[in-house]
C-alpha cells in the first residue's frame, strides 16, 4: 500500500526493515530527518538497535566501523561536510572490507557554505572503494536501501555502500511510497552472518593491520578488482528485488529511457525525472541514467552510447582543476575505448541547489546539439 510521506521518513522506514543492530549518527542538514526518525523508532520500541549519539561525523563513521567489525549490521547517514569529515574512516571501512550501508543525502561542499543539493560530496569519495548508487525517486531510495545491505554483505562483495539521494529534492519532499512488509524484507534480506571479520575474544583476529609495501599493493590491487566485480552482484540483487517486490530501475546498473535517438543525455539522481519529461516532448533525445556510479558501468555505457551522434553529460559536481564535471572524462574514456565517433559535451548544473528546469534542459540541448567538447556551467537563470 502506498503512503504519502517525506523522503527521509520513508528511508528511515526502509532502514528499520533492514534491522541494523548499531546506528551511530550525527545530524547534519539535509540528512537530519533520517537520524531523527530512527531515534524516534528506537525510543518507541519499533526498532531494536543501539543508537550511538556521537559528537562528530568522524566519530559516527568510526563507531559504525567498530560496530561492523564486531560482526553486526551497522548504519549511518550524513551529508556534505559530514561526509568530508568522515573521509579518513571512509577509506578504512572499504579497505577493511566492512559491509556498512550509509545513506548520503547529497549536498554541496564548502566554501562558501551552502546547505542545498548537488553531488560534490559523494563524487569526492568516488575513489574510496565504496559502491555508490544514485536514486531518482524516494521509492527508489527505499528499495535501494534494502538492496544495499544484501549487496554489501554478499560474500563476493564485502564492501560498504553509499545510497545517494538528492538533498531536499528527495529528502524533504512528500511522495507516495510503498513501504514493504517486514515479512517480505526478512525473506529477501537474511540476518548478517559475518565469516571474514568479527571481533571475538574467543577467536582473536587483527583487523586493519600495518602492511609493508608488497602486501599493501597486493591488497589495493585485490580491492580494485573486487569493487569492479561487485557490479554483477548489484545487478543480481536488483533483479531479485524486482522479482519479489515488482519494482525495477533500468537494469539495476543504468537505466535507458527512449535511448533509440541520436542524442543521449547522461545524468544521475533526481534530475533524471525532469530530463525524462523533456525527452517525452522531443524525438531526437534520450536519457541514460547512471544508477550504479561506482563501480563505473563501462561496458553498459559503451553499449548504450557508442553509436550516438552526441552525448551530453549532465553533472551536479565540478572537478576543479579539470574545468569539467568528474564523469565527463570517464564517459569520454568509455567512448574512446569503444571506438565511438560521438561528440561529447558537458553541462554542470544544479550546483549549490540551483533548480534545473525543463526549459534549462531544452535550452542546453539546443545549444549543444551541434557542438563538440563544450563544457557549460549553468548559473541559475531559469531561461538559460
Amino acid at each position, binding site marked *: 500500500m502506498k503512503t504519502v510521506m517525506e523522503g527521509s521518513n520513508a528511508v528511515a522506514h526502509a532502514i528499520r526493515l533492514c534491522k541494523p543492530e548499531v546506528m551511530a549518527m550525527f545530524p547534519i542538514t539535509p540528512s537530519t530527518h533520517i537520524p531523527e526518525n530512527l531515534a524516534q523508532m528506537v525510543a518507541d520500541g519499533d526498532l531494536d538497535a543501539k543508537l550511538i549519539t556521537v559528537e562528530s561525523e568522524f566519530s559516527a563513521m568510526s563507531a559504525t566501523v567498530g560496530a561492523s567489525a564486531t560482526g553486526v549490521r551497522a548504519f549511518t547517514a550524513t551529508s556534505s561536510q559530514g561526509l568530508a569529515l568522515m573521509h579518513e574512516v571512509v577509506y578504512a571501512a572499504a*579497505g*577493511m572490507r566492512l559491509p556498512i550501508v550509509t545513506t548520503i543525502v547529497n549536498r554541496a561542499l564548502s566554501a562558501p557554505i551552502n546547505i542545498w543539493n548537488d553531488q560534490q560530496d559523494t563524487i569526492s569519495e568516488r575513489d574510496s572503494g565504496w559502491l555508490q548508487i544514485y536514486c531518482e525517486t524516494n521509492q527508489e531510495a527505499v528499495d535501494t536501501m534494502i538492496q544495499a545491505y544484501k549487496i554489501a554483505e554478499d560474500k563476493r562483495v564485502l564492501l560498504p555502500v553509499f545510497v545517494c539521494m538528492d538533498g531536499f529534492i528527495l529528502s524533504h519532499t512528500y511522495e507516495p511510497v510503498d513501504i514493504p512488509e517486514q515479512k517480505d524484507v526478512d525473506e529477501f534480506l537474511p540476518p548478517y552472518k559475518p565469516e571474514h571479520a568479527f571481533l571475538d575474544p574467543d577467536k582473536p583476529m587483527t583487523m586493519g593491520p600495518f602492511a609493508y609495501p608488497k602486501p599493501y599493493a597486493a591488497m589495493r590491487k585485490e580491492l580494485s578488482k573486487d569493487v569492479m566485480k561487485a557490479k554483477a552482484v548489484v545487478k543480481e540483487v536488483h533483479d531479485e528485488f524486482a522479482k519479489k517486490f515488482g519494482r525495477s530501475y533500468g537494469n539495476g546498473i543504468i537505466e535507458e529511457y527512449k535511448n533509440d535517438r541520436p542524442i543521449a543525455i547522461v545524468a544521475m539522481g533526481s534530475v533524471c525525472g525532469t530530463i525524462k519529461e523533456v525527452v517525452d516532448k522531443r524525438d531526437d533525445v534520450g536519457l541514460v541514467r547512471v544508477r550504479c556510479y561506482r563501480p563505473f558501468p563501462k561496458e553498459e555505457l559503451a553499449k548504450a552510447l557508442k553509436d550516438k551522434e552526441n552525448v551530453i553529460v549532465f553533472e551536479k559536481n565540478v572537478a576543479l582543476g579539470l574545468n569539467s564535471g568528474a564523469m565527463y572524462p570517464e564517459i569520454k574514456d568509455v567512448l574512446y575505448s569503444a571506438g565511438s565517433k560521438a561528440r561529447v559535451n558537458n553541462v554542470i548544473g544544479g550546483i549549490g541547489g540551483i533548480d534545473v528546469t525543463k526549459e534549462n534542459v531544452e535550452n542546453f540541448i539546443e545549444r549543444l546539439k551541434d557542438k563538440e567538447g563544450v563544457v557549460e556551467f549553468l548559473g541559475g537563470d531559469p531561461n538559460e
Partner: protein
Amino acid sequence: MGEKVTIGGIIYDVGNSTATKTGTWRVFKPVFDSDKCKRCGICAKFCPEGIIEITQEKGAQANMDYCKGCGICAEECPFDAIKMEVEKK
C-alpha cells in the same frame, strides 16, 4: 604475481609480531660493558621493546633481532656501561 593476502588483510593467526624483525631498522647499536654492568636491570625496565636480558654471567644483553638502536638503555644506565655505536653493515 603479487603477494597472497586475506580479504581486508585480516590476520587470523594473531600474536605474530615476533615475525617482524625490527632490528633491520637500526642505525646505532648498544655495546654492553660486562665489567661496568652491575646487573641492576634498569636498562631492561626502560627498553621499549622489552628485549634486554640480564644474566649473572654476561650482564645485560639485547636481542639484536628486535633492537631498534633507540639508545634509551644507554641514556638510563647509571654506570655508563652501555655505549651507542654506529653499526657497520
